[in-house]
């Protein structure tokens, strides 16, 4: 009888300590995944900043060309860039659909402006094929590519996080965390980005 008692106590004790230690594992995993999401988020913000930095350079190049029509288009771009910069991307913006819509709208308008600049520059091949302009357009295209990659990675991290806090063991440890929102890539936005593709043929 004594033996039975002992084994029962021992096994219950073992079970409880197992649960206790596994709690650590689940909690830590949630923290880790959350950190991944935040890192991916800051990456996106960095890439958008990177792209915004090119706009003043673009304005400089256009001013140097002294072409009135192109300058008019670039003024529009400048104004839209200022609007876009006023909405900085962070977690509050991403999770709020209204702010997100505003952000996307600003970015779309900016992209459309750049697309129009490209269309106008078709008329002036000297300007279009000038070294500085092509260099800048390459950089902006590269910035767009990086933004896309950053968005994809963010969405992957969000998916991992959401899956973990919604499925079985994670559910009970996720009291302080809410489900995260993936980055909606705007359909109109991508169209205007494609309009920006520089085809030197």
């Amino acid at each position, binding site marked *: 009888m004594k033996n039975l008692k002992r084994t029962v106590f021992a096994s219950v004790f073992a079970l409880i300590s197992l649960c206790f230690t596994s709690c650590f594992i689940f909690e830590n995993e949630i923290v880790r995944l959350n950190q991944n999401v935040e890192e991916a988020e800051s990456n996106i913000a960095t890439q958008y900043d990177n792209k915004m930095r090119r706009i003043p350079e673009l304005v400089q190049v256009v001013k140097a060309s002294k072409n009135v029509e192109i300058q008019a288009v670039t003024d529009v771009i400048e104004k839209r860039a200022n609007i876009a910069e006023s909405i900085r991307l962070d977690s509050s913006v991403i999770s709020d659909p209204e702010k997100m819509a505003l952000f996307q709208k600003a970015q779309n308008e900016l992209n459309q402006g750049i697309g129009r600049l490209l269309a106008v520059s078709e008329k002036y091949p000297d300007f279009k094929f000038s070294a500085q302009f*092509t*260099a800048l357009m*390459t*950089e902006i*295209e*590269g910035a767009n*590519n*990086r933004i*896309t*990659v*950053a968005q994809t990675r963010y969405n992957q991290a969000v998916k991992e996080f959401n899956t973990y806090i919604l499925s079985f063991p994670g559910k009970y440890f996720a009291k302080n965390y809410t489900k995260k929102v993936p980055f909606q890539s705007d359909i109109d936005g991508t169209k205007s980005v494609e309009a920006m593709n520089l*085809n*030197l*043929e």
Partner: protein
Amino acid sequence: MKRNPGQNPALRQKKVFFLFLMQLFAICLSVYAEKINYAEDPLVQQRFVSKKDKEGLYEWTGSFVVDAGHILSADQFTSLTTYLTKLNDSTGIQIALLTLPSTNGEAIHDLAVRHFEKWKLGRKGIDDGVLLTIAVRDRSIDITTGYGAEERLTDILCKKIIDDLMVPLFREGKMGQGSILAIKTIAGIVNPESSEKVTKDLITGNIRPETESLSPLSSENSAISSVAAENSEKQAEDEYEESNEEEPDSEKKDKKENTALETIIWIIIAIIVWLFNRKLGLWGGSSGGHSGGHSGGSSSYRSGGGGSTGGGGSSGKW
């Protein structure tokens, strides 16, 4: 097995058990059996091997070149693979070439980034990998750079390489030459030693489609860097012979190391068997002779270094 009348059943059981253990050990040794290593196959055959995985991405072959678009001749494939392998050995930089018939509607940059993430080019943490992708039917070229390579090989330089070096050659139909010239320029720029010089040459236009690329590797590999971009068929023949001469040397070295390892293992087995002999008195004398290890052996199957990309680089069409 001879049946010695003087032994008792217990001892016989131990014998059987011991033999069973030896068999198990021999089976475990099959881990040293020869693996099919794409990189060691006759490279002339390998350029036709390009497998796709479930998602339609081409598999890594260890030779840094996947030529599903068939733009490289046999000699070009050989010399390019040798060049990239030596580059990886000496500097850790991993540059790969991927040619496909078509991207099937997908943007070539997205496809290139997916391949880069699958192959993990470049060293982990340093991320000095670069992927050059060519879609033959779509007539598009893309260069994708890892985080580390981006610092030296900027998007603008990628665009320059595509527009100034590759497009003129590709329009003439010399796609293999163009690819090789581009790869050597990329190698020159990503390699910190030669980066400034090659970047300056590229910008000032000193690297032309006709010239050899100026990318000095370390002095040991100067023999390889002299295997330059093919400009004529004569040169291609000479280089094919050169690269063939170098291959046997490296193979012999690998074989020597492997057989040394295997002889050591056989010696250990012999010692164990001999000790068991002494203990159990199974059979007198030394154990039977054994070979000095089988030929071939497994060379290291070169894999991607764990690097990642930020999606940088540039693309173009010809």
